């Protein structure tokens, strides 16, 4: 037994050295995760800020100017310019210089004063439907506050009911709080793919895998020897990324570190297993690279990172059950925002562990088959 452990240990050290041998791959392991987290952390947001809009105002009154001022003063929108005819409005949307156009008819103020309902038209660029949809929501709430002010000012009858809303766990609805834990998960996945996805394929292409096979090491031992560095590097990278999320981006961490690290361990078990599986299926590094992408891209897309799983068709929702990132994102988000501890996260742990064990077994089998 001690001999086996020593062999596994020796192979792990060799793997780590191979990974850290040259400056380029060392740099690849340490620099990019932090840079990526910083760049993507700032970039990935569903909150709108300073989205350009144009105004075509045919009304001469004060009220329309008030409404426009509310839009221009909102942090979500920025007034690009005032246009003076319909075709300039169309032009601004067409060439994408503005996402939204506000078209105010000539009777806006007089309708308001006579107590009639005034209409404004919001025109949005649907080529970017997601942003357009968000902008509609923001615009409607600006109009709602405008209406409330109007009613209060002109002594109209207030509506008999009022909708009071609040959000749990993220009171300001800051989408960074949702996205940044997600990016932590994606980058952890990326790093474990980097360390394991090509490790066997590289040795096979270079012919050193054959040398490994003629040593007294059994396939299981080779498997453990190859998996261990993936775990080590993955845990370190994961920790680094999570620390940046907490201390740089100030995403509140309300759960328990135990719960998070059990999740991280199970997640690494799954990704290292899948990485080794891809790697041992591939005969060349080019094939390994293709395999990594064929796994990684769908895993990210179907994880619920940016688009909710509940929105997907039922059949696709079943496929997401195989996606380790899906479970880890839930672990991350619940640990960060909802204060969930290990006991609440069991439903996420066991599927990860099952995926991990199964893929490890398959990877081990593949080592043997390719003797």
């Amino acid at each position, binding site marked *: 037994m001690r001999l086996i452990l020593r062999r596994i240990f020796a192979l792990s050290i060799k793997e780590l050295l191979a990974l850290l041998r040259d400056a380029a791959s060392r740099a690849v392991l340490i620099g990019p995760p932090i840079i990526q987290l910083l760049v*993507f952390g700032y970039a990935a947001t569903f909150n709108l800020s300073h*989205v350009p809009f144009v105004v075509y105002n045919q009304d001469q009154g004060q009220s329309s100017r008030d409404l426009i001022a509310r839009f221009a003063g909102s942090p979500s929108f920025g007034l690009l310019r005032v246009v003076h005819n319909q075709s300039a409005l169309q032009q601004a949307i067409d060439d994408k210089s503005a996402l939204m156009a506000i078209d105010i008819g000539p009777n806006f103020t007089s309708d308001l004063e006579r107590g009639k309902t005034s209409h404004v038209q919001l025109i949005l*660029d649907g080529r970017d439907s997601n942003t357009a949809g968000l902008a509609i929501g923001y615009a409607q709430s600006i109009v709602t506050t405008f209406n409330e002010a109007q009613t209060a000012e002109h002594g109209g009858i207030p509506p008999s009911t009022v909708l009071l*809303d609040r959000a749990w*766990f993220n009171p300001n609805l800051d989408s960074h709080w949702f996205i940044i834990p997600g990016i932590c998960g994606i980058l952890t996945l990326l790093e474990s793919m980097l360390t394991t996805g090509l490790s066997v394929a590289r040795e096979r292409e270079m012919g050193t895998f054959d040398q490994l096979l003629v040593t007294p090491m059994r396939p299981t031992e080779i498997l453990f020897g190859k998996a261990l560095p993936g775990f080590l590097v993955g845990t370190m990278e994961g920790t680094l990324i999570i620390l940046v999320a907490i201390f740089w981006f100030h995403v509140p961490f309300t759960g328990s570190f135990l719960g998070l690290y059990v999740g991280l361990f199970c997640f690494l078990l799954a990704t290292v297993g899948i990485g080794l599986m891809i790697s041992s299926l591939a005969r060349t*590094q080019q094939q*390994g690279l*293709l395999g990594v992408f064929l796994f990684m891209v769908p895993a990210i897309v179907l994880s619920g990172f940016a688009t909710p799983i509940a929105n997907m068709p039922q059949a696709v929702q079943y496929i997401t059950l195989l996606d380790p990132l899906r479970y880890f994102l839930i672990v991350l988000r619940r640990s960060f925002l909802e204060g969930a501890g290990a006991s609440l996260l069991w439903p996420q742990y066991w599927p990860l562990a099952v995926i991990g064990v199964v893929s490890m077994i398959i990877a081990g089998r593949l080592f043997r088959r390719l003797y």
Partner: protein
Amino acid sequence: MKWMRLRGLMRKEAYEILRDPSSIAIAFVLPMVLLLIFGYGVSLDARRVSVAEVVDHPTQLTTSFLAELQSSPWFRPTIYPDQASAERALVHGHADAILWLRSDFTRLSYSGNTAPIDLTVNGVDANQARIIKNYVNGTWLVWLEQEATRQGAQLSVPVIADTRVWFNPALRSRDYLIPGLIAIIMTLIGALLTALVVAREWERGTMEGIMVTPVSTPEILLGKLVPYFAMGMGGMILSTTMAVFLFDVPLRGSLLVLFGTATLFLLTALGMGLVISVLARSQFVAAMIAIITTFLPAFILSGFLFDIRSMPQVIQALTHVVAARYFVAMLQSIFLAGDVWPVILRNGFGMAILCVIFLGIALLRFRKRLD
């Protein structure tokens, strides 16, 4: 530059492609898998929001409000006996939102006061939470108007904003996600095809064999570029066909412009792959760089999912080196709006600069030398 030598190099590269079918898979299987997954799996469209309803004191008024929610296609309401059990459902993820009509709801509303409707949403996914709020708000406004009419009162809403979304009136997210997705797929294809080709020759030592021949650097690079360009274009044709015929995305621009921009983009993406390959020297490092620099930047920084204008200035500047950024904007215009020349020229210019930079670096750094 000799045509005969170039032809020989291209034939050699073609044999290389046929020998390891993984590059054929990159050009054809990768786009197919990704388009199917994205096309069916990713949707930002509305789904039924499960709302937990708590009514302390049911009356005719509360029933009419709940009936409005029930009849809306956006909600799947469930009645909970009290607020505590509804809150538990929210924490456990069984409900997305809670609507609470307190015991004095009807009394307040009829006595000329304003009766509150408490809406609580789970804010973890800030984007979804905002959408849910907007839906509830919209439904409430409709109900308010109906209720006012029923009671014979004229509801005075001062301003109503009518929204019109051009190019994608129904805000079908598939219509704008798929053109964006094609840009991401082409980024992957372009870079993955060429990222390893030069590094591979260095690693295997075959580059030295080429060096002793009279071929020049541009000939070697062109010999590598042309066959992969042909495959990348094949992938583009496949993706466009699937988008139009399988997913019914409208193609309003001309095919000529579509494939013209695709040519420019593919050259840029292949150029980026060549740069990785030339700089890395070993396939392993090249693969790592390709994994890090292709998918995630294209996914997050291209404006495909997250609005570039809402990002911080520094990040906005950074997006200019992501070739997919230009291609996403052009494809969304070509598919949904038509040949909008200001958009095409502006983005085409940015992409052309990137293309020249990438190919220039590849040419300059690729020298026939031994080390």
